[in-house]
């Protein structure tokens, strides 16, 4: 297919972008809901010919993100068994939809959103544990155990309201800025700031209370 960019302010627009048209074509024909939050804004894109980004291959993406995503799942689910299970499910879902997910500027944000949503339900976590134990019984070891004090910190995080826990985990564990967290969770930056502020206050109070008791 001979496809050209439609930009009017560049002499290069007359040159066919052979080899890149597939990217352009897909991005144009996939007005999915997720795309609005995961890709750059139209305003930004309309300034000139788009830089063309190669579709990342799933394997390198998977290997590069796996550990961090397991960490996030572990922090939010509190289960060494379920964390890996949740991570696998998220990557499996990404793999199935890879054509779409890969076209996002930040596919890792999509995976983290799925993990954040899957990890915060207690019932889901317990169900996953049950399923994983059945399926993984031949495995020798799960994730190593954290020191008690640190484990307690994450337990306190999980005791926060769902959104606050997600924001706190992404903020501290992944050291992500507010804009990133907003992108991952699909909410406004101000909302993230509010959750972060309230979550930190509540978390500090919880930890202090525990220190006093001990």
């Amino acid at each position: 297919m001979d496809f050209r960019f439609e930009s009017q302010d560049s002499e290069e627009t007359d040159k066919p972008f052979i080899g890149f048209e597939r990217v352009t074509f897909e991005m144009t024909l996939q007005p999915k809901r997720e795309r609005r939050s995961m890709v750059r804004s139209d305003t930004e894109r309309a300034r000139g010919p788009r830089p063309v980004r190669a579709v990342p291959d799933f394997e390198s993406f998977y290997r590069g993100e796996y550990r961090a995503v397991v960490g996030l799942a572990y922090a939010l689910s509190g289960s060494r068994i379920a964390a890996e299970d949740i991570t696998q499910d998220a990557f499996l879902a990404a793999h199935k939809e890879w054509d779409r997910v890969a076209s996002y500027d930040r596919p890792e944000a999509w995976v983290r959103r799925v993990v954040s949503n899957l990890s915060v339900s207690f019932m889901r976590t317990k169900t996953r544990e049950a399923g994983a134990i059945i399926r993984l019984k031949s495995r020798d070891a799960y994730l190593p155990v954290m020191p008690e004090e640190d484990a307690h910190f994450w337990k306190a995080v999980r005791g926060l309201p769902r959104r606050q826990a997600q924001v706190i985990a992404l903020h501290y564990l992944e050291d992500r800025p507010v804009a990133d967290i907003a992108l991952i969770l699909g909410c406004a930056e101000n909302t993230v700031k509010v959750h972060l502020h309230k979550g930190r206050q509540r978390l500090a109070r919880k930890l202090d209370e525990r220190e006093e008791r001990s």
Partner: protein
Amino acid sequence: MSLESRAARASRSLRRTVSDLAPVGMPAVVRRQRLSTFASLAAAAAMVLVFAGIASAMPSFFEPEQVAATDPSLPEPDGSPTVIEPDDQESNGELVEMEQNFDVVPVRQMVSESDLPSPWTKFYGDALPGTTVIAVSDWGSADLVVDERGEFSLKLEFEPLPPAGLEFPILLTVGSAAYEFHFTSLWDPGNVDITAHQLYGISDDIEAYEKFFGTAPPGLVISAESPYGSATTTSGDSGKWNLKLWFDDLPIGEPFDVIVRIADEVFTFGFVSVYEPPPLPISVSQANSTSDSSSPWVKFIVDGPVGTVVDISSSYGSVSRTMTGTNEYVKLWFSSLPPAGVEFPVTVKIDGEVWGTYAFTSWYEEPAPIAKTANSTYGSCSEDPPYDVYYGTAPAGTNVDIASAYGSGATTADGSGNWSKQVFFAGAPLNEVFTVTVTVGAEVFTFDMVVIG
């Protein structure tokens, strides 16, 4: 230790925990078919097979996907997807579909029977994001793709209407898992009860209306009649009807009956209007704020409903009036004269509540008291008969007596404080002085008089 320090330490600890973790095997999932049409057909066909009792003999029909299980030692659940050879020798084969989840937390059906004219059922549960959920029945189908939350709620509305009392199967597929549910519609358009209900029974609006509603077999005419209006409607296909009846010239406070007829059924309802006209707005305005009269008054113009009690009070008198019309003048005559030029307050109360305080000034000054005086006009006289005229001032009404040896008279001071009297002295000796005494009230004046010959 601060929160930041704790968080940093806990984060380091958690990162260390996962740092040695090797990614499990790469998934070798055969790309899922884009399922809208294909999966619907597959699910429908699967349902037929299930009914025929041969589905178990063809399990692969329900498996549109193939996933990797790189560790052959892992137990393989019944009906699990086909296993293909691993492509990564380091993997341990954990990246598999969560078929078990659906066994542990099954999909649930919200309602399995309904007596509604538009029956529906709903399925909800958990599934991986991107999983296609399809519900298929002889009376309709629905599908969705599970979003990032990993939860779904699929509503299936039945169209056309299933026969009343027929229990029919619904096949629900969640990814590669299949479930069979049942549903029974109990709604029978030919067997709808005739019912009628009234919504209000009373109205306080000047334009009153009543609403009636109920059920009846489709197509029946429903009429509502009353002495003050009537209306008709027809029951709809759903077996429901509702009717709005407007009333004209409705008497206030007098209950009456409304008859609703549906086929041979007659329903009687009562209705009454309790409309109350809104109260007239009250207004008070002062007609005059000064007076130079010796009998000053202040007047107010009051608008309000009949029966309103208006009280006007001041330091110089007060008045109370109950209004007999909706617009009245209420005047307060001051019982004692207010000091001239001094502004004083006048308070107006409406039905006992202070409505406002107004200012009033009287400019009338009381005149100084009139002195008692007496004067003689001539003092001598050559006329025949001789006379003199006496005059003076005295407070109005004061008696004046004039007396002498040769003549006398009496008069009274007039309203302006003046008096005057002519007295004749018949028989008085010529050229001889005599005394005339004038008594004004209690004061006595004497004058000499002589008749000149």
